[in-house]
């Protein structure tokens, strides 16, 4: 299972990757913003974890552009962000985000949401 972890904060990328390693995942690609993530995304990516507020191209715009790509329509996307206004969360759902984690998160919540977004993938396999 290969993850694309998108966050402009190196600290947050390390925390998320560390959390994923604790759950048992070990294959990662990192990106510092949405634009970089679009470049690094390919068919080998099984799941994307992205922040919202990033320079150059934000997380929401990244997901919108990803969903327009043939190879990016189905990949599960988990948004991990400080943004928690109802309108923001609804906008994320409408953009094609599969689940949502509010920062600061607990390892339990992150694991739970990763399990939820990966459940359909596991079922398909």
């Amino acid at each position, binding site marked *: 299972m290969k993850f694309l972890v998108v*966050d*402009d*904060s190196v*600290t*947050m990328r*390390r*925390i998320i990757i*560390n*959390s994923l390693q*604790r759950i048992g995942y070990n294959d990662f690609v990192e990106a510092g*913003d*949405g634009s970089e993530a679009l470049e690094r995304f390919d068919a080998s990516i099984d799941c994307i974890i992205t922040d*919202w*507020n*990033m*320079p*150059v*191209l*934000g997380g929401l*715009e990244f997901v919108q552009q990803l969903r327009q790509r043939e190879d990016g329509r189905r990949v599960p996307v988990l948004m991990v*962000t*400080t*943004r*928690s*206004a*109802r309108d923001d*969360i*609804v906008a994320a*759902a409408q953009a094609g985000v*599969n*689940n*949502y*984690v*509010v*920062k*600061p*998160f*607990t*390892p339990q*919540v992150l694991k739970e949401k990763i399990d939820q977004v990966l459940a359909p993938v596991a079922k398909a396999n």
Partner: protein
Amino acid sequence: MADRDRVLSEMLSESEAALRMMDAILEELQAGDDDGEDAVTEHVAAQVMQRLEAVTAGSTDLTALVMHVYLDVIETLKILRRTRSALERTTVEQVQATQEKLLEVSSTTELAATDLLDGLDRAIGMIDRLDSLAAEGNTEESEKLRAELRDELFRLIVVLQFQDIAAQQLSHASNVLRGVERRLERVVGLLDDADLVSSSESAAGTDAADHAHDRPRGYDPAASMLGAEDRQALADEIFSPAANADG
């Protein structure tokens, strides 16, 4: 001699009357709002001219001088009023909000530091116990304690999320201060007659221009360590299968 005294006395009396009238006009202008300011000024200017002509009894030089002073005072008042409202409109609330954000950063970093220190104390205590267990040869208990130590260290890693959130809060505060600085520069510009109208208009348009571009920002102005559970509950509600089925 008596004639000269009479003339002086009349001039003094007329000057006092003119000053009282100016006071009344200034009070009237200070009480007025910005809307229709020019119309009020024109109306009052006509009154001033009329009364000045009456009190100065045809002395055109004095009339012109007092009128010039009057117009200068009015123009200065206008500038000061625009300066005051520009400051009030654009800075006070933002500075207060930024101050609150900075206090939250301070409290967040202190709480995180306390969390880290507590965790490190617990980890050191566990290592000490591991040493004792090793001396006793108790491998079963050591195994259990090592797992606890890993959990504790991982928990400390997760605590470091405060860095991301505090960085976003500081970016927001820095951005607000840059905005305040920009606006203060424009307020200073307001005091320059030549830029009076254009500076005032551009100052008013700044917020709209900033928001209209809606450039991607590397921070969330509302980022907070507080109330994460409630905020997560809202996200769960929106992303719940039932909500998706309804939508």
